[in-house]
């Protein structure tokens, strides 16, 4: 089906020149959601009434001739682990079914104040634990390029909503690649910002030292615009720093002389066609005047076990709050309080979540703490140091986003380790708190998108957005052709 994807800037122009009203546009999106979501399962809750109310406000502002804020009136989606006051927020889990937050996450508060039009809450792997969206208690979100394939995870619903053109952009969260991997699978741009630049207040925690909220958009310019709006210091998040500067006004900068690092270890075990696509992208960067620096980073081989040990340890603690007493699902039949808590958790959490809680408990338990958790934290220090050293001689690093293209359905039900291994290229940025972005760079023989990843030093989010934008411009839309089934204007 031929579709037209509209950039945020284009939509704003349509509003300002009164070619389309915000209400008309919102209704069009809601109509499309009604049709497409039956197949894609991108949304698990649609907030049509609220969306139309906001759209009306925006139209009144336009009628009064007032200027619009950057994301005002743009129809968008929020991952279901981002708290929304008065709107059920489930994290894709049975244990939180019926939970209605009484406050807004800071990111949503910022967007709400800009009159962003929330179309609904998007599907996700349960508690963001998964790479295919299939651990969701609502069933997985499908890939709009080919619905026999998953949209990716854990922010699969967010990616499916944007690639399916049933949201202009979506906010997801990235603990080990959960924004970048689904963006790669769905031919989109996904940004995991520097840890601390976007407030985590109101994001339901998975692994607090790794979690970061980020945008999934159909082009780099939109991702930069969203990042600029949401990267604000927030006193409600003790790790908040805010961003150093705006990124959207730096996209046009020439990257002549930019040093792009390529660590060989990122390419171990990567599918051949994906390697070839990335090599082509490297060539494009050379044509743009960038200098390619090849180097070794042996620490990469440790990143996966380090990530899973730390993430699960933090999860085992963060998910201790689900006890059936204060909110969420509560088991009906029990003999005492302890039995009630155990039954509530076993009936409410899915298998993968229980597995990760148990792994986290194991690595933190007496006798195993030093061998696993403490050792992993030390290695985390070594990995951070290796990246810092790489950024002494490079401006950005280039790597694949995922070793494969979108998995076929039911991938997750297979061997858990096999699933974990697919996170090999994305987890390092979370371990080291670095900004990383995935941008499409080609297609496999089935027509499924291939993504490449750009990583920069902390608080250098502008550099990867700049490098990605220059690549996108040079490719002149080539990377998006048949990628989203249409063109982007």
């Amino acid at each position, binding site marked *: 089906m031929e579709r037209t994807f509209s950039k945020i800037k284009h939509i704003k122009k349509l509003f300002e020149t009164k070619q389309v009203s915000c209400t008309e546009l919102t209704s069009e999106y809601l109509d499309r959601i009604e049709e497409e979501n039956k197949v894609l399962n991108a949304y698990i809750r649609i907030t049509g009434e609220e969306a139309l109310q906001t759209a009306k406000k925006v139209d009144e502002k336009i009628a009064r001739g007032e200027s619009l804020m950057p994301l005002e009136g743009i129809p968008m989606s929020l991952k279901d682990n981002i708290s929304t006051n008065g709107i059920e927020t489930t994290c894709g889990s049975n244990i939180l079914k019926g939970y*209605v937050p009484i406050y807004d996450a800071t990111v949503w508060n910022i967007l709400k104040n800009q009159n962003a039009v929330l179309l609904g809450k998007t599907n996700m792997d349960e508690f963001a634990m998964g790479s295919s969206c299939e651990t969701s208690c609502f069933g997985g979100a499908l890939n709009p390029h080919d619905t026999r394939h998953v949209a990716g995870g854990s922010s699969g619903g967010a990616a499916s909503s944007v690639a399916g053109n049933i949201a202009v952009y979506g906010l997801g969260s990235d603990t080990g690649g959960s924004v970048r991997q689904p963006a790669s699978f769905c031919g989109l741009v996904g940004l995991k910002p520097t840890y*601390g630049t976007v407030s985590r207040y109101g994001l339901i925690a998975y692994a607090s030292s790794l979690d970061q909220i980020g945008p999934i958009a159909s082009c780099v310019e939109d991702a930069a615009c969203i990042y600029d709006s949401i990267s604000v210091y927030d*006193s409600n998040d003790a790790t908040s720093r805010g961003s150093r500067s705006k990124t959207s006004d730096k996209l046009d900068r020439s990257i002549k002389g930019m040093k792009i690092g390529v660590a060989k270890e990122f390419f171990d075990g990567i599918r051949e066609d994906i390697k070839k696509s990335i090599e082509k992208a490297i060539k494009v960067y050379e044509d743009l005047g960038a200098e390619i620096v090849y180097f070794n980073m042996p620490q990469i081989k440790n990143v996966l076990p380090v990530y899973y040990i730390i993430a699960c340890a933090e999860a085992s603690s963060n998910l201790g709050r689900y006890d059936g*007493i204060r909110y969420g699902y509560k088991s009906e*039949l029990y003999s005492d309080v302890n039995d009630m808590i155990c039954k509530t*958790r076993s009936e409410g959490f899915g298998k993968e979540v229980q*597995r990760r809680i148990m*792994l986290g408990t194991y690595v933190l338990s007496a006798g195993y703490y030093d061998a696993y958790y403490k050792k992993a934290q030390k290695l985390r220090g070594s990995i951070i140091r290796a990246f810092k050293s790489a950024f002494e001689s490079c401006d950005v690093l280039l790597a694949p986003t995922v070793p494969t293209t979108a998995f076929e359905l039911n991938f997750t039900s297979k061997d858990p380790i096999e699933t974990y291994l697919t996170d090999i290229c994305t987890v390092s940025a979370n371990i080291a708190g670095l900004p990383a972005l995935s941008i499409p760079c080609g297609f496999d023989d089935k027509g499924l998108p291939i993504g490449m990843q750009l990583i920069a030093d902390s608080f250098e989010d502008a550099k990867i957005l700049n490098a990605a934008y220059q690549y996108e411009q040079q490719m002149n839309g080539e990377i998006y052709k048949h990628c989203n089934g249409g063109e982007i204007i």
Partner: protein
Amino acid sequence: MVTREDILKIAKLSKLSVDENEIEQITKDMSEIIGFADTINSAVEDEDVEFDDINDIVNAFHEDVVVDSYDREEILKNRSGGENGYFMIKRRKVK
């Protein structure tokens, strides 16, 4: 090597009840995952590196000022059962 006893102990610490029929599969899965995690024990970390924080983030303390908070009844709406501002856990026997 993870044993059946290990699984029962971890489940208890995790406040999860493990179905008798599933213990064997869980033990197998956990053994594989712990085997995978074990690979870090052959890795060499930088001797003088201690991980304490990322991006030099330190504790951000703020003044202990009393501010308006949420309405108690509003907060309690999310609980299952309970009344008069209390949570309620019934003493029940499993049928």
